[in-house]
């Protein structure tokens, strides 16, 4: 029972960052119809940026974090502008392959700059965990969860309450009509990709100090983000948020009770199951299988 509680707590904390990854990817897919293979690289980029600021320059952790996220937003904007904008209207396979090419180039650039040796990032939180009765959790993880929760809340507010969010939702529903109503589709696409990338970079920057930073860390992150997006239904932001927590829970329980070697397989088995049983995702409001 105590073990179960601990697993649930771990899942809750991990789920926050998973949700960040999933929201970013599902927005990019839903609005732009692009299967973004660079998503994991933005995650890695965020982690390396916090490593760079904190460990190489010696900047304050709380300054480095927003800086890393902001640079992720900028990088996402650049990728959209240079690789996706010229191919607007290309079929989904072409853009997907372009993103695979960009992913390979980015990952190896990271490897070239920072080598393949894993790096760790110092953080200003006490090492002693918080003990709450039978369960315990470290301070950094609590911080990660709070920061992720704030970012998730912020994304939801941005999408639901602001004018930009309204334009994004309109573009998602019908691109042509939105354009006719005066929505600048190009700007929306760049903003969406930049925001999604920023969220991925935030997830990386938050998890960098918890785990270690390595050039290939983005591969699994990408695949997990795909799993989350499938769980929630492509383009469904609320679904991705819940999907992130579900994936984390399934992974934790799978690793705890079945076998830790199959931890990363849980997400994929879950995807396969969901797609067999309910291909539109668990929370789909309407048919979205294209």
């Amino acid at each position, binding site marked *: 029972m105590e073990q179960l509680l601990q697993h649930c707590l771990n899942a809750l904390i991990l789920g926050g960052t998973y949700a960040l990854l999933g929201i970013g990817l599902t927005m990019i*897919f839903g609005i732009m119809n692009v*299967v973004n293979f660079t998503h994991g690289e933005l995650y890695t980029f965020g982690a390396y940026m916090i490593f760079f600021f904190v460990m190489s320059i010696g900047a304050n952790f709380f300054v480095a974090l927003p800086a890393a996220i902001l640079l992720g937003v900028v990088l996402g904007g650049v990728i959209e502008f240079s*690789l996706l904008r*010229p*191919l607007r*209207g*290309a*079929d*989904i*396979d*072409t853009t*997907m*392959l*372009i993103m*695979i*090419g*960009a*992913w*390979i*180039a*980015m*990952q*190896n*650039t990271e*490897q*070239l700059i920072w080598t393949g040796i894993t790096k760790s990032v110092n953080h200003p939180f006490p090492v002693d965990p918080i003990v709450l009765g039978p369960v315990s959790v470290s301070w950094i993880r609590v911080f990660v969860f709070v920061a992720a929760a704030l970012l998730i809340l912020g994304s939801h507010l941005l999408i639901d309450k602001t004018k930009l969010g309204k334009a994004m939702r309109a573009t998602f529903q019908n691109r042509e009509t939105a354009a006719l109503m005066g929505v600048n589709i190009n700007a929306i696409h760049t903003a969406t990709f930049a925001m999604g990338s920023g969220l991925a970079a935030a997830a990386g920057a938050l998890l960098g100090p918890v785990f270690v930073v390595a050039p290939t860390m983005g*591969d699994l992150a990408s*695949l997990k983000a*795909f*799993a989350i*997006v*499938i769980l929630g239904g*492509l383009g469904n932001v609320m679904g991705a948020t819940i999907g992130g927590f579900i994936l984390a829970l399934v992974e934790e329980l799978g690793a705890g009770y079945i*076998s830790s*070697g*199959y931890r*990363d*397989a849980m*997400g*994929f*088995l879950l*995807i*396969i199951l969901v*797609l*067999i049983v309910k*291909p539109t995702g668990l929370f789909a409001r309407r048919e979205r*299988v*294209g």
Partner: protein
Amino acid sequence: MKRTLTWVWLFFLATMPVWMTNQYYLHVLISAGIFTIAAMSLNLLLGYTGQLSLGHVAFFGIGGYTSALVSLGFDLHVSDTTTLVFPPQPVWLAFLVGIVVAGAFGWFIGKISFKVRGAYFVIVTISFAQVVRLVALNWVDLTEGPMALNNIPPLTLAFPGLGELAFFKKLPNYYLVLAVGVVSYIIIRRLVHSRAGRAFIALRENETLAESVGVNVTRFLVLAAVVSAAMAGAAGCLYTHYIRIIDPDVFLFIYTVTMVIMVVTGGKGTLAGPVVGGIVFGILPEILRELAGPEVQWIIYGVIMILILFFLPQGIVPALQSWWKGRAGHEAVLPGTRAGGGNGP
């Protein structure tokens, strides 16, 4: 014209070892050949039915692992008390079992994943490959996990009256790969020129329309998946018995990407495309290796992939074809209108 070209090609490939005596170059050619066969199999799905399978390496690995296990012999623990013992079998039989098992997985995966299309299909296939990789990594009793299966025997053929020939050396392996490659090419050629092939293309161009005129969508897609998976499995068998070691890294996503790059660069949906792409991207890394470190090499790989999709979205072979047609017929074809320009299929 086309027929002559094919024969010239074949002659060129068959006599290659005569003038290329360097063993290392021969090794590069064998590896390129194995991946070309895998790329040809992927082209059947990606190019002809239009389904982007990004888990193709799973079939390659399943073929390789099955063939390795059958040729080495293995124990299967069914329960705590019963263990099925499979003694080592001759390699040619292992080869066949590998192909059949890969094909069977193709059938199974086809059955479940063709319920969905587009991005969903891509993600199911990726997930499948990842699950298979993790099983190979964790089922240590069977696969030795990260310790890898070692000392896999090479193919041995017995010729009555002549004794046995074991494929230890590069030269016989080269001809083996070439032979399997030619057979695969012929199978794909016959398939795409048959009624099934026309159904594949109809599905790719307009699935709803194809279905409305009576094409059984799932049946033809599953057929393509089975043939494609079996062929990828054959490539995996060749790989295993040539390298003679196999570990879970064979399932890495990067190998699928390599196959996809080969197909897209050469020209998806053309017979010669994967061969051209396979040779270019089989040999290019070896040339780049002389000039740059592995990271720079991969960066160049990625950039080339992006450039090709930007400027030659149809691939090399269709671009050459339309260039040739434009030259031969002196038609009023504007450069780029048929080869380079457009983005659509």
